[in-house]
């Protein structure tokens, strides 16, 4: 009887849940230590109240964006540490030596690396930059659903927390970042690992889906007067396309994960062969989400580089219409190629050939984008600030990665290269250049706008060189290893293969990347300390073109003192050239007005914490707690939507006088 009650209350949670191997124990202890130190600092500085009022309960997309960036940077360090461990294992697991860690740990580490890098680094940077930049670029003060936006962030945070909790309580999935059945079914992966993976993605994924809806609505409904669709900055277009993909792709992920969890918890047979299910269904579903996901990540990267290359070439983006058409084509085609991830699972030749060709067709609009960027540089006056370095690195790597992608898209070649390190090298080339480099460029580019000071160009360039050279050393050997028939996720190999030198080079490259990351962290700290000397007083440090550069740096809470009006694609540039009025000009017919802003609320935070509780209790089969937390989340939502009276505050227009610009261009008195 007691046991039954304990079972119901605690599910599978027992004292055997703490980590057993030294590696994860150390990782977990250091994580706890870092958290405690952070909490200590906050207490010491008496900043808890500030943290709660200004950040945790905020609904300002700028602050939410900053929080996304902080989490992503921390997760880049976590995922990067995983990468170093993977490299160390493959360097040492040779011949008689089984390497520095048990295989079971190794498999958890690469699964965690992939999951964390995609969901909590790439997606986090993406949503961070989108939150910071999109409202400013379309002349809006806010997003369409500010509280939902906060909830999205806290759900993302909860998913991150669930994945990291597995370090200390239980263990993580060892079935790879996409956890194919039957390996991920209960029979082959008993215990909580795969469930941690499921619920981490499930909770974060719901947050992403809500963000997708939020930004599509924001972009479609909240543009300032004059900003027609075909006048939107290219970054906004890329986000619109990406978020449209999110809206349609993430529900597939949610359903797929739910079905897998049902298989694992209630013994259903959606994907288990034995009960009449079929693993192929899972593979199809997960890639029907997974392929769009890679374009969700990379399209905003394209958008960022479009802004960067135009600004630093001092020319309008070449072929705007082509660029929009290319994004549109990619958005649609992204749904038509998922089968290229499993040519080797026995599909017929016609199916394989059709999906191979569909995949190659996507490279046409992608190629067009590259040519348009190059044409933007043509007859420009290129200023090589650090974002341009990342752009140059991106074009080099992305072109080569694109070639290897087209090679993999030929089914006859994929038979030889699928699941090899060639594939691993290919997707890292695309993701690191198209997503990480783009996010870095975007961060550097918009940093002064958000924080009011610039970063050290000298160290930024050094960090670029570490990333670029390190990347080539870390991944060029992997292409060769792929040709040598080395499969991915391999923990051990024979010494006679002669592979070890290449793994050594790859490890050295990874170390150089790690130096790059250390430089990035260091330069950030250094630049903060010297920020008074680096103030961006003009609001326009790069000689920018689009609306956001017309704003002062850092941007005030209300973003725009008056509603801007635009007349072209590059309104600020045109205004600086004297061809158009200043978009933020205050005139008699366009005066200051009261500004309404949403009030801070802890709703989003509580929903996120509820999400964490749902995920955590489902992992441990404490169903009652999961259900309770889910109900609480819903109650909070209903409560929030039914009490709208005190949700906004007003900044009276009298307070704004002097913050906009007069007709002469200076600050109005």
């Amino acid at each position, binding site marked *: 009887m007691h046991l039954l009650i304990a079972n119901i209350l605690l599910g599978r949670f027992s004292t055997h849940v703490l980590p057993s191997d030294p590696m994860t124990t150390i990782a977990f202890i250091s994580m706890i230590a870092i958290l405690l130190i952070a909490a200590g600092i906050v207490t010491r500085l008496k900043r808890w109240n500030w943290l709660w009022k200004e950040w945790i309960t905020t609904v300002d997309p700028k602050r939410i964006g900053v929080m996304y960036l902080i989490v992503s940077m921390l997760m880049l360090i976590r995922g990067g540490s995983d990468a170093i461990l993977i490299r160390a294992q493959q360097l040492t697991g040779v011949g008689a030596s089984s390497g520095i860690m048990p295989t079971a740990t190794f498999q958890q580490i690469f699964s965690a690396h992939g999951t964390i890098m995609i969901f909590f680094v790439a997606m986090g940077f993406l949503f961070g930059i989108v939150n910071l930049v999109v409202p400013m670029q379309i002349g809006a003060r806010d997003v369409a659903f500010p509280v939902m936006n906060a909830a999205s962030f806290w759900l993302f945070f909860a998913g991150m927390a669930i994945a990291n909790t597995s370090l200390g309580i239980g263990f993580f999935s060892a079935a790879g970042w996409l956890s194919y059945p039957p*390996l991920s079914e209960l029979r082959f992966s008993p215990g909580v690992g795969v469930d941690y993976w499921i619920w981490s993605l499930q909770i974060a994924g719901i947050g992403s889906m809500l963000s997708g809806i939020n930004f599509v609505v924001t972009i479609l409904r909240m543009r300032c007067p004059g900003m027609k669709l075909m006048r939107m900055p290219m970054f906004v277009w890329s986000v619109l396309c990406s978020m449209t993909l999110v809206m349609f792709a993430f529900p597939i992920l949610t359903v797929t994960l739910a079905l897998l969890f049902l298989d694992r918890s209630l013994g259903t047979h959606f994907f288990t*062969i034995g009960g009449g299910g079929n693993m192929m269904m899972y593979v199809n579903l997960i890639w029907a989400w997974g392929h769009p996901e890679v374009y969700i990540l990379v399209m905003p990267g394209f958008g960022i580089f479009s802004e960067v290359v135009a600004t630093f070439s001092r020319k309008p983006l*070449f072929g705007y219409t082509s660029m929009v058409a290319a994004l549109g084509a990619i958005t649609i085609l992204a749904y038509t190629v998922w089968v290229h991830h499993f040519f080797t699972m026995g599909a017929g030749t016609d199916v394989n050939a059709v999906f191979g060709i569909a995949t190659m067709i996507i490279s046409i609009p992608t190629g067009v984008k590259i040519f*348009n960027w190059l044409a933007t540089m043509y007859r420009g006056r290129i*200023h090589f600030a650090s974002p341009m370095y990342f752009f*140059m690195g991106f074009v080099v790597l992305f072109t080569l990665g694109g070639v290897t992608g087209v090679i993999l898209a030929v089914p006859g070649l994929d*038979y030889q290269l699928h699941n090899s390190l060639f594939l691993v090298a290919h997707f890292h080339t695309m993701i690191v250049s198209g997503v990480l480099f783009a996010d870095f460029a975007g961060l550097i580019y918009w940093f002064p706008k958000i924080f009011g000071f610039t970063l050290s160009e000298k160290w930024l360039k050094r960090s670029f060189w570490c990333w670029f050279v390190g990347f080539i050393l870390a991944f060029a050997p992997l292409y060769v290893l792929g040709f040598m028939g080395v499969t991915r996720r391999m923990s051990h190999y024979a010494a006679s293969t002669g592979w070890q030198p290449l793994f050594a080079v790859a490890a050295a490259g990874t170390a150089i990347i790690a130096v790059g990351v250390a430089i990035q962290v260091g330069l950030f700290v250094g630049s903060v300390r010297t920020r008074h000397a680096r103030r961006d007083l003009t609001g326009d440090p790069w000689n920018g073109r689009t609306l956001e550069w017309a704003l002062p740096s850092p941007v005030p809470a209300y973003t725009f003192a008056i509603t801007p009006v635009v007349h072209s694609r590059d309104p600020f540039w045109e205004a600086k050239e004297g061809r158009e009025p200043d978009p933020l000009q205050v005139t008699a017919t366009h005066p200051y007005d009261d500004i309404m802003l949403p009030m801070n609320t802890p709703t989003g935070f509580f929903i996120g914490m509820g999400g964490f509780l749902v995920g955590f209790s489902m992992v441990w089969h404490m169903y009652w707690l999961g259900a309770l937390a889910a109900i609480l989340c819903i109650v909070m939502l209903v409560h929030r939507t039914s009490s709208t009276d005190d949700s906004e505050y007003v900044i009276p227009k009298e307070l704004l006088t002097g913050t906009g610009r007069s007709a002469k261009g200076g600050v109005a008195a």
Partner: protein
Amino acid sequence: MGHKRGILGVRIVSIAVLSLGGVYLSYRYLSSVSIPVLEPKGRVALEQYHLLLFAVILSLFVVIPVFAMLFGFALRYREGSHGRYEPRQASSTRVELVWWGIPALLILVLSIVTWTSTNALDPYRPLAPASHTVTVDAVSLDWQWLFIYPAEHIALTNRLVIPAHENISLHITSDGPMNGLWIPQLAGQIMAMPGMETQLNILANSNGTFEGLSSNISGVGFSSMTFPTHVVSQSEFRSWAASTRNRARTPLTMPSFTELAKPRIDHAVQYYSVPESKLFQQIIMNVMKGEGVPRVTA
């Protein structure tokens, strides 16, 4: 200025020395190791190799212009150089048509090649008439390979022996999670999936020993699922099969298979006689009925 030039010179020289050293070391290294995908010994792998060369050469038509323009424009139009500056140039239908068109043409060519090569390299397509075909049933277990020769009535684990110049028709399934059967020097990989049968045809052009492996993660023992593939002459193969049949003491039946299929990480090569020629189908049926070998991964 002169000082700056000096530093630049030192940099260029050291980068040149480093890259030359790198090229030399890579060359030394690469000529000392085997690169199976680029050293094909089977008919399919050879065609795949040619296809690879074709795709790489075709892609140079994009890579070279892109790199030339990227670095050319970067040099010519950088701040402080004397390149022409046209701050308002923003589009040109003619030029844009060119770069929608040229990639489209290249992809058209590659699509045609893809269509024909996908058919030519169809792993299900026999490479020789039935009279010159040896059938092998491959079953991936946790974590080893079982190869059954139904016509020869023998089976062995973790080693594949096949005749050269004959079509080897592999029928593949898994009794555990998904694995991938891959012998890079002979042909591309095909997944081994539980409850399902996939096929792969191989034709080896020369005798020798070629490494085979599992290309898909299936649990803790997956990295050790390698198996040597011995390609021997046809007569050697027949006599090997006959002697194995005589020597093999243990018959492989459902009970002994169940014993064999228990999870283990080792590399023992074991020989069996196979009295029942439908064993492979039985294994698949059992998995489909949910009666596969129950197990728990470590």
